[in-house]
């Protein structure tokens, strides 16, 4: 030691202490001088609602022969193309179109000359790596990369596409130079219809405001998370997406271990059964208080079989909201490599065509549903055909007097797919979903999206409908339509939006246009719900005038939404309450501002 300090007068121990003290002081200096961990602030969007009715689906497609289970020899000479996806029931159509994981005899893929392999892969990062590997091989000059680890397309939930496409795009730009390769949504083949959901105590359904201060375990950025965030915003609740903080004034999201939706369910179970807690830094009004609080997990966002696990293990929990209410939120999107697809447009269109035709058979014929559940079991190598068949339809069960729902998927025929992108009725549902989630990524910044990726690939670049439009010679089918003919009674969500109007006028002010756009996007995602729109004013002016003004403001919101394509039959009630139901005191400008509002309620 003496050699270090160049002195012989100190003992080894004293020298050691000096060395440790000096290093400690330097480290402490670095620690205090460096920037602290960033925390983000809870956000609130305007409210929204959803309602669900079963859709009428009458098509009379001619029955096609069910595919055999033997591997096709007819297409074995054709180049092999590969697609990977999660174990997800909403892919039933495309999988039965192939007859199973590999193209079988008599399958639609065979008839359309496609040699396709469908690979199950439950990890998003691995799906991404497989697609990156494909691009790597394609970049080296292979026309049809088909190594074990490469796929030209993946199937994921469409609301996850802004996250997926944007992050991969950044990596592609960095690796191959800007804009050399792109991923694009090339079509949709089905959707989650109840499978993905928010689970919590029944009070969250009867009184959504009681969710305030709750901690919900979820996979950030995932579709279940979107369902939860949509529900919060539809009910005018703030969301705190910061995994390190707790805001009693907002709904707090706790990110699940390993980004695993099953863990979301397990975290709720262990918190409720063992008292397991998470320590979070307390935030009040967007500022850290310096205190740490221990909180239980109060609810979770998960999908089948995570929901089944919760309902099996816990009592007193139900599904609060799901993709059945937000029925347009989660399509099964096929995301492919643009540069390869444009060289092989026939293959891509034929894959989509086969999937959409098979889906139409599933929608019409029971034995196609059964065959699809067998093909799914064969591809995913898990559970039984009976399980997939039941979960496709969705199940209800009752426990201690509480009814809850599990599962639920849909598949798309050609008309569904065209309608979903607004190609037949002008309402581009997917654009609403894409833009809404893009907004969430920027505003809520899950996992530091802004720092890591920065920008979202805009809808027009992320979606390419050429291959879908290119399909010809396909049976004419009809799309599922939302049915607004019945009176809806159950409130799904009720949000108080602060939409600014010019003083004394019923014209939506330009500052609120972004807010109204978000409401519109939410309403499109919850297409099956009916709506009530009620206007309120402050106490400036006379009561009669205010009553009329509140009605015309509600009407202004309705007119705006109608002009954007929301059908008139969807509005169950348009009303104004004038100044009669103030939320806050009219004695302060802030209170008055709170009272000037439009409440949109989603009913089913």
């Amino acid at each position, binding site marked *: 030691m003496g050699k270090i300090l160049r002195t012989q007068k100190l003992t*080894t121990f004293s020298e*050691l202490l000096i060395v440790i003290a000096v290093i400690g002081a330097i480290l402490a200096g670095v620690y205090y001088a460096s920037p602290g961990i960033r925390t983000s602030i809870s956000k609130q969007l305007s409210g929204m609602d959803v309602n669900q009715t079963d859709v009428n689906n009458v098509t009379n497609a001619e029955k096609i022969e069910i595919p055999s289970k033997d591997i096709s020899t007819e297409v074995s000479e054709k180049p092999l193309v590969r697609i990977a996806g999660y174990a997800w029931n909403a892919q039933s159509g495309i999988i039965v179109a192939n007859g199973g994981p590999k193209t079988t005899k008599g399958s639609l893929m065979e008839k359309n000359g496609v040699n396709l392999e469908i690979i199950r892969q439950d990890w998003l990062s691995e799906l991404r790596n497989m697609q990156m590997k494909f691009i790597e091989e394609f970049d080296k000059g292979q026309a049809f990369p088909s190594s074990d680890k490469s796929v030209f397309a993946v199937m994921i939930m469409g609301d996850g596409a802004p996250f997926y496409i944007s*992050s991969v795009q*950044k990596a592609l730009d960095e690796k191959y130079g800007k804009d050399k390769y792109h991923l694009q949504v090339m079509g949709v083949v089905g959707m989650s219809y109840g499978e993905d959901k928010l689970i919590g105590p029944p009070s969250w359904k009867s009184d959504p405001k009681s969710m305030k201060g709750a901690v919900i375990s979820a996979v950030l950025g995932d579709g279940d998370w979107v369902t939860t965030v949509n529900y919060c915003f539809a009910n005018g609740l703030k969301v705190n997406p910061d995994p390190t903080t707790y805001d009693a004034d907002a709904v707090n999201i706790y990110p699940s271990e390993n980004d695993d939706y099953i863990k979301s369910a397990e975290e709720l179970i262990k918190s409720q059964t063992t008292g*397991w807690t*998470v*320590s979070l830094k307390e935030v009040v009004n967007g500022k850290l208080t310096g205190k740490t609080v221990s909180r239980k997990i109060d609810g979770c966002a998960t999908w089948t079989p995570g929901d089944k696990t919760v309902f099996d293990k816990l009592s007193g929990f139900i599904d609060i909201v799901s993709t059945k209410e937000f029925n347009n939120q989660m399509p099964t999107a096929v995301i492919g490599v643009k540069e390869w697809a444009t060289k092989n447009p026939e293959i891509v269109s034929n894959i989509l065509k086969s999937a959409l035709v098979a889906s139409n058979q599933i929608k019409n014929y029971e034995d196609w549903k059964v065959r699809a559940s067998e093909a799914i079991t064969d591809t995913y190598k898990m559970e039984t055909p009976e399980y997939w068949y039941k979960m496709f339809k969705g199940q209800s069960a009752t426990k201690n007097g509480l009814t809850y729902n599990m599962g639920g998927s849909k598949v798309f025929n050609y008309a569904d797919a065209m309608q979903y992108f607004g190609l037949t009725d002008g309402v581009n549902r997917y654009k609403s979903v894409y833009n809404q989630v893009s907004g969430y990524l920027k505003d809520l910044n899950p996992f530091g999206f802004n720092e*890591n990726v920065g920008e979202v690939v805009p809808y027009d670049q992320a979606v390419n409908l050429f291959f879908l439009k290119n399909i010809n010679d396909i049976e004419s089918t009809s799309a599922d339509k939302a049915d607004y003919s019945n009176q809806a009674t159950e409130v799904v969500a009720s949000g108080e939006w602060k939409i600014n109007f010019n003083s004394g006028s019923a014209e939506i002010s330009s500052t609120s246009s972004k807010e109204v756009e978000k409401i519109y996007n939410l309403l499109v995602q919850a297409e099956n719900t009916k709506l009530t729109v009620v206007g309120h004013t402050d106490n400036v002016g006379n009561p009669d005038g205010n009553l009329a003004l509140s009605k015309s403001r509600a009407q202004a919101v309705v007119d705006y939404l109608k002009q954007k394509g929301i059908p008139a039959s969807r509005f169950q009630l348009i009303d104004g309450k004038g100044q009669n139901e103030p939320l806050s005191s009219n004695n302060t400008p802030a209170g008055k501002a709170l009272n000037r509002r439009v409440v949109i309620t989603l009913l089913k």
Partner: protein
Amino acid sequence: MIKFLTPFEKISKSNKTIILVLWIVLLIAIWFIGTSGTKHLFPSPAQVFSGFTALYNEGLVEHIFNSLKLCFLSIFLAVVISMLLAYSWPIPALKPVSEFITKFRFLPFTGLSFYVALLVHDARNMQVWILVIFLTTFLTTSLIAVIKDIPEEEFDHAKTLKCSRWEVLWQVIILGRIDYVIDVIRQNLAIAWMMLVTVESIVVASGGLGFLIKNSDKFMNHGRIIALQIIILLIGLGLDSGINFLRKAIFRYSKI
């Protein structure tokens, strides 16, 4: 020049330094040149540097301290527990317990966290105990190996000095091998440091380097990933040499 290529050739310290510096310069040069075109496999130094700056501004230092805190606390607890287990190994009645614990190092943790949750009710403590459980199995194994390796002469020597059996345990095993214990900790630190990334992803609320690298990986931000890998590597190496320095400083005889 030929001298530098001859096997077992002794060279001066300054020459050694020159060779090392040359290798580092070569490595950096390959990195710069290899990533200079538009297409490259590995992120360029500029991408890594911007990743590093962004991380620093988001509170990198605090994350590092979080990780270190978790690491040191776990190691401290694991050392206390494994020392008790290892020192009771020579006692026949307790021997099976210690040996049983060492066998657990083959168990993966997936699926077991639920049972730890039954005992530990706080997520942060759970992180600590998962690391402690892991480390204890490895540390106990290494410590028992140290004890097994003590030459018979040392025991005989103690016996000739009329030490009782308990005194032999104290003098030869506990006091006589304390410097080895520090070395064992040093070697197991690498396991703990590597495990940290996995453990921190269980409870992201407490932050840490594991949390940062996982987020960056999720978005494929390679600049940040490599910046974090470099940071984790450097801190790991720093800890390793720091502990080694302490061992040599405190137990000068262990240099022999």
